[in-house]
């Protein structure tokens, strides 16, 4: 289990990022906190333009671009137009070009295990966030079991920030908490337990969990404590 306070600090850095260079620092910090070999954020737009920031070697990043590997990379091919996270072993590596690509990647320090999260942004924007590591299959399955959801959230937070840097972007209203999310976060901030909050709002605990989950995502947090702190910090709730 990663240290959630450390991770929250990184998300705070991400929150304050004002330029793409800041994303590089964040992606290194993410790699370290999850104790994996590499973390990579890779943006591909509808026109095929790409932007990446990751901990892979510069040599591999250059080679990926110069060989135009985006066209054969099974991770891109297998995740494009999808929205479910993918263990690399589920992808199709059977073609000759895919096997040669893998061999080249391994020679440039890319680990044998990968977990990639596709993200569908607005207007055909597409991005991938990948955790990469060298270990056996059981260890990697365990990593996904423990950290999968956190990585999914981190992936989306990275993309949300990257989208902010787009000159043509439309203002993001996704941050706005719904009335019930405001109620839930306010009562949690006041120290109510979940069952007390649910009772106060006349909803079930299951329903409450959905509102908390949604509020947490809008606030860019990984757990409820951090979400409450952000909601107060952003002035979205008053306690």
């Amino acid at each position: 289990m990663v240290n959630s306070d450390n991770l929250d600090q990184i998300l705070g850095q991400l929150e304050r990022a004002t330029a793409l260079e800041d994303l590089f620092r964040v992606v290194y910090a993410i790699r370290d906190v999850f104790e994996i070999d590499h973390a990579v954020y890779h943006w591909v737009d509808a026109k095929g333009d790409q932007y990446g920031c990751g901990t892979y070697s510069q040599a591999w990043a250059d080679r990926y671009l110069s060989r135009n590997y985006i066209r054969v990379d099974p991770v891109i091919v297998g995740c494009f137009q999808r929205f479910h996270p993918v263990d690399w072993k589920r992808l199709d590596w059977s073609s000759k070009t895919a096997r040669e690509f893998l061999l080249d990647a391994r020679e440039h320090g890319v680990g044998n295990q990968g977990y990639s999260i596709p993200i569908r942004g607005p207007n055909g924007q597409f991005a991938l966030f990948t955790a990469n590591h060298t270990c056996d299959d059981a260890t990697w399955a365990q990593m996904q079991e423990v950290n999968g959801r956190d990585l999914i959230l981190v992936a989306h937070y990275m993309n949300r920030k990257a989208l902010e840097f787009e000159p043509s972007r439309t203002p993001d209203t996704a941050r706005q908490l719904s009335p019930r999310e405001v109620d839930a976060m306010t009562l949690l901030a006041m120290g109510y337990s979940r069952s007390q909050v649910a009772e106060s709002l006349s909803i079930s605990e299951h329903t409450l969990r959905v509102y908390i989950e949604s509020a947490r995502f809008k606030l860019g947090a990984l757990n409820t404590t951090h979400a409450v702190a952000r909601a107060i910090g952003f002035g979205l709730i008053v306690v």
Partner: protein
Amino acid sequence: MLRYLYADQLHLFPRLAHSMFTDRADQFARRLEWPVNVDENGEERDHYDALNPLYVIWEEPDGRHGGSMRFLPTTGRVMVNEVFPHLLGGGSVVSPLIWECTRFCLAAKAAPRVAAALMLGGGEIMKQFGVRHFVGVFDARMVRIYRMIGSSPEVLGSDGTGREQISVGLWSFSEEARRQVARRANISPQLSRLWFDRSFGAPPVAQHMALA
């Protein structure tokens, strides 16, 4: 068997896809009388079908559709936020860990186990993809069927009255619910996993262990 297909893969199974959309016309337009569009091919489609959703489809031995449902993550365009936000108290529900499930459909002649099999598929998605909640849009009269197969949604709110009543609710898949649904469907967890792996590629660990 269960198939998990994104919209852009449906052309690989033309018979299955066509019968799914015509069964949807039969269920939603003819039987439930929802105000939906049916095209000249007798297929019911809406604009969410154009967003490359993920379908879970029960395929009958003859290759036809027996039942299906449709998933989209709430981080993009979804019905609960665009059509029914008032049922969730206003505002929107947004998270990559909350997916929307819509167009739960059963072919007129589908065996009772098909509904349970679909729920089992929903459970696989939750387990394998880290999804925590499904927010669903469904006909209130379906609640009886859901209860029968041991997977009742929690109704958050309903719109309209009588035949046109449409509800929004939540599904959860606890281990216990999974086991109950699997029993109703008469499908072993191993078989369910096999179908999942057939759609999404080789299993990460089992494959390796089989070789060991």
